[in-house]
């Protein structure tokens, strides 16, 4: 039965880990704007043009 205790503790730790991840995500403002990121992620980073490479 001692294996159950270990499982219990592990599962609680995992669950609390997710809880804290959730609290962090709220704090960092991820729930304030849930539309714009879905558009933003579709923009490609344009490959550098020759001019810029020359400048660098």
């Amino acid at each position: 039965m001692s294996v159950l205790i270990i499982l219990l503790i592990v599962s609680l730790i995992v669950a609390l880990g997710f809880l804290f991840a959730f609290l962090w995500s709220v704090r960092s403002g991820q729930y304030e704007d849930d539309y714009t990121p879905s558009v933003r992620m579709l923009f490609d980073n344009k490959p550098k043009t020759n001019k810029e490479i020359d400048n660098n």
Partner: protein
Amino acid sequence: MQTIINEQKKDLHCFHCGEECDDERINFEDKLFCCQGCKTVYQILEEGDLCDYYELEKMPGISFKNTTSKRFEYLDNETVKEQLLSFQDEEVGIVSFYLPQIHCSACLWLLENLFKINPSIKSSRVDFLKKEVRINFNLKEISLKELVELLTKIGYEPSINLDQLDKKSPKKLSRRLVYQIGLAGFAFGNIMLLSLPEYFGLDIQSSEQFSEWFNWINILIATPVAFYSGSDYFKSAWRSLAQKRLNIDVPIALGVIVLYARSVYEIVSKTGVGYLDSLCGLLFFLLLGRIFQEKIYHRLSFERDYRSYFPVSISKIENEVEISTPIQEIKKGDKIVVRNGELIPVDSILIKGKGNIDNSFATGESKPIAKQSGDKVYAGGRQIGEAITLEVIHALNQSKLTQLWEDYEYESEEFSNFSKITDNLSQYFTPIILLITLAASLIHFWLGHNNVFEIASAILIVACPCALALSAPFTFGHALRWLGKEECFVKSTQVIEELANINHIVFDKTGTLTYSDQEKIHYEGKKLNEEEIIAIWNLTNQSNHPLSRKIKESLGKSLAPLEIENFRELEGKGLEGTINNRLFRIGSAKWLKKDAKEFNSSEVYIEIASALVGHFSFESQFRKGLGTLIQDLSQHYRLSLLSGDNQSQEFILKEKFPEGSLILFNQAPQDKLNVISKLQSEKNKVMMVGDGLNDAGALKKANVGVSIAENINSFSPASDIILNANQFNFLPQLMKFSLSCKRIVIVSFIISFLYNIIGISFAVQGLLSPVFAAILMPVSSITVVSFVSLAVWIKAKTL
């Protein structure tokens, strides 16, 4: 490189803004632009290597045709700066702007790449739905004013007004609610997991210790849920009890308390496992409903008052120098300059220049009024024509318009989260549940059972009206979203309920039933020959008076220029000039038609060589489909019309409206308000449909105020519903939809009652097991929510 082509071709669209290029056409690098503004933006973007803008969306730009150049000097004023910046230190400034022009992904991309145009901008971040951009910039290298000018130059002029300066932080989805729901969801899942052995009757009970461990962990997890996630329900229930009312949160709070107390009791006394899973599930679903409701709201601000119309600053003359000053700082005796198209912010006296004041914004009177030096001008008027100098006689908060507005502000209704229909129902619901509980306990006591406490608590638990509390917010919330897609924006879910009770609809005329910017001009009298038409065109071309300009436009775009002798513009009368030795006079009836008894300001008379030949009359044009709209509505509602204008269109309107409708003209804002109050005192539920500030009082007073807006994001008075003007014909569907929604809510109430009856019938017999409760509650909530969502969706599709 650059050529201007004047020939007329159809179907040519500006590369930047996509508008048809009719008047002007600019070719630049094989691309076509409709105006210099669009070309300039293209050049700026090209320099910043931002031409991807045009690849993300087709013709994404904002047209420059209808914009007037504004002055941003006031942004150098320290007070204004401080109010606008949300953060500043020596170097860094952070500012949020509301940019109503944001409309596509290309806008988003461009605004987030501002740093490529000007490296002093460190970063910018767009909130697409709120149409906001938050810019982090280097204060030393670029001033706030320059930043705004940059945005304006690329077509995104920030909308800055007094209103925004006052409230710094706009309403956000409250983080507290997100925490509450996250916690409840977390606990719901984990407690269910820990209760799994219990659900399936697995035999881990053999080791006493373990089941106890599991139960104690459950209590540990559920306690913060009950007291943190559920805290809003306790508060609301307490408030409602203090007011001697029973809102829907009372039985919910009671249910939560009983659930928690009984579960803890069972676990501590080792008599059972409690209902902690049900408790967390209940709160999770309830909070879901609440978050859904809150998410729908804050897209548009409805609480607009006069401050959102007024400019932030005005040019004040001090020692013969113009200084841009915030208008709150304008005092009695100051001298201010108001330019063409600017709003007069305070009551004042004209001291220099020719005033031509368009009061349509404040009074609804559509024709500009001429003012001369020494005349009083009131706040809310818009100057058309040359710049005028004014001496202030009342400060901002003492001006007539401001006071008018404040008179209208009757006590705002008590804040309530609940729909009326749910609220009314819960007046009966709670006592009935308490009675059932009491009766069941008495019967069991009578029969000598020793489980009276268990029975009573089981009834209270299972009767907890979770599904009931969810049905109205979800129905009306979905309805709000659907209406939003039709460009009909509703302030709150209560408004839709209120709509279903309306029986009388009152319309404003100008700008509501008629197009606000289109006027039909027709000529009556002796037929004019071509030479005379050209002469009139030339004369009106000399004048800046709005009526002259309209006549000119109606006659043709550009006619042959003629030589005019002795041209004179007579203030308040009209204009005259000699062409080919004939004296032409164009002006008001008062001046030219000596025998006239009534003076109609929407008529312009023509006199050629001392003989009156005819007149132009201006008529506002009715919206398309108005006839059928009124017919549709008159089948179910009584209709009225209140116009601030004169009677000139009485005949046409009487024909359109059904017989016996109340049609009144020359209504001042206060009159409109009084008519609405009178109708309400006759037990009518009144909906007011209006557009201008002159309707503001009536819109507020009416049970439902609908403001018709040409541009959703600006210029509409405070109201309950903002309807895009080109969706005006949507009104009958809106009314129908609101009635369907009410029916859907009633059906969903019946469904949730059925669940309650099933649950209570088990509970009174003492048969309510924790597993049964844990299944029944979510199932009832899910069925009700999916029923209403589906029903609203079907209704909206068949709208």
